[in-house]
């Protein structure tokens, strides 16, 4: 029983990480119907951006977590946003009116490009790199369950940012413009909404969340590698599809479900954590067969 509770707690933390990334997939899809397969790589470069920021700090600041950690967040998020904006401008925007397969293949290309760029240009990126010890230490203990304070921080950031995002999209003027563009891009233009501005902003929001996830990943798991974007990206993509791609709430709930399946299956199913991807793809296939619009998505409609 205590093992199960512990795995459920681990699942919530993993779900929180996956949610931060899944939101980027679901928002971009909601606006331009593109599965941005390079989004996992945005998360990865953010993690390296945070690490690089730490490395560049003077030694006395490196020893002060209260300064170093916020600066790492800033560095990681800036790198993520710059990469996402360039990617949108030069890889996806020219293909805006191309058949849907073209930007999808481009996204795969961008993904490989970013991974290889980090592998080639980041010092020692061929092996796992240890992440700086600037995160909260110790554990939160609730009965039989232990969660590191870094994990608690991750869950808090994930839920907090998701609520802020949802509120912004529902209440603000720009949020209304985003929803209008998602529902009917031509009519949104007739209202005076500049589609490029909405699309760039969507990529920026996704990148900020992926940036936070990239830093917290390093803090929670203690080291990073260039495959992390692809690996975690698959979970996040599946979470977005499970929740109903395009839906903010769906992405978050889908992410927690995926996190829980991952940890519980890793504990109890034969083969342990080596079979993570098997169970996740089983979920993905079942969703696509029985409820392709996901838990909270709208059934696909053909636009007039």
């Amino acid at each position, binding site marked *: 029983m205590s093992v199960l509770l512990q795995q459920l707690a681990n699942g919530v933390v993993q779900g929180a990480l996956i949610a931060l990334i899944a939101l980027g997939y679901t928002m971009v899809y909601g606006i331009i119907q593109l599965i941005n397969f390079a989004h996992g790589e945005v998360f990865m470069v953010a993690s390296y951006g945070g690490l690089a920021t730490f490395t560049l700090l003077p030694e006395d600041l490196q020893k002060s977590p209260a300064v170093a950690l916020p600066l790492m967040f800033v560095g990681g998020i800036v790198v993520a946003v710059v990469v996402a904006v360039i990617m949108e401008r030069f890889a996806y925007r020219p293909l805006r009116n191309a058949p849907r397969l073209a930007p999808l293949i481009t996204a795969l290309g961008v993904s490989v490009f970013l991974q290889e760029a980090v592998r080639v240009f980041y010092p020692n990126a061929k092996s796992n790199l240890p992440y700086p010890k600037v995160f909260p230490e110790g554990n939160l203990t609730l009965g039989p369950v232990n969660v590191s304070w870094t994990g608690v921080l991750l869950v808090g950031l994930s839920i907090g940012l998701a609520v802020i995002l949802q509120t912004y999209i529902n209440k603000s*003027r720009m949020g*209304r*413009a985003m*929803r*209008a563009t998602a*529902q*009917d891009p*031509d*009519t*949104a*233009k*007739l*209202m*005076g*909404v*500049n*589609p490029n501005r909405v699309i760039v902003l969507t990529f920026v929001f996704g990148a900020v969340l992926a940036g936070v996830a990239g830093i917290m990943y390093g803090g929670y798991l203690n080291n990073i590698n260039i495959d992390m974007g692809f690996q975690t990206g698959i979970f996040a993509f599946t979470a977005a599809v499970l929740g109903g791609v395009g839906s903010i709430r769906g992405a978050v709930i889908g992410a927690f479900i995926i996190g829980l399946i991952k940890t519980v299956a890793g504990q109890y199913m034969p083969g342990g954590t080596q079979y993570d991807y098997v169970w996740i793809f089983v979920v993905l296939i079942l969703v696509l067969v029985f409820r392709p619009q996901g838990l909270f998505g709208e059934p696909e409609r053909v636009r*007039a």
Partner: protein
Amino acid sequence: MSPLLEVRNLSVAYGAIEAVRDISFTVEAGQIVSLIGSNGAGKTTTLRTISGLLRPAAGEILFQGKPIHNQPAHTILGMGISHSPEGRRLFPRMTVEENLQLGAYVRKDDGVQADMQRVYDLFPVLGERRHNKAGLFSGGEQQMLAIGRAMMSKPRLLMLDEPSMGLSPIMTQRIFDTIKELQSLGTTILLVEQNALAALALSDHGYVIDLGKTTLDGPGHSLLADQRVRDAYLGESH
């Protein structure tokens, strides 16, 4: 003094298919002008080109004397042209209020709230149900909201595409009364209609469009009396 809107020898193509071949017309400030013609004549394409959603293959569109046919759609609204598209195209999963707020998206002044109230005064059913999703309303109510939304940008020129489509005769009459009222409040209106009788009765000037060309024009009442118009569009036979 140049006219408010001038369309000169416009042609528009979807790939190889030419939907508009040679359309010319003029809208003077303060007028109601209607474009009538059968289904597929190119009326909707013309409006979509004026509002910047489509690019002309040839010809010119001048608004207050300045060419606008190379401007993107989202800046054309800011110049003072508002377009209520065919089929109403509300944002169905947003509330009445949110739809109206989007109509006022480019406005920075603080009169938006008062103008929203004016729409509610004009169409009380919208005010009573302002927090309901637009997709839940009847066709006539949706048309009211579409017109109200198009008014929210305070346009100099309001373009309405088939505002009577799918409506009962009573509701059609209300919509046309509203259009007349908007004119009296100083809005210039370009109307596209299949209901030629009602549109021409209301219009200062009308243009008949056939197979992508302007074929006939004149004051609304004289077109109504023209035997060719009556034969072709008013469903009369000898």
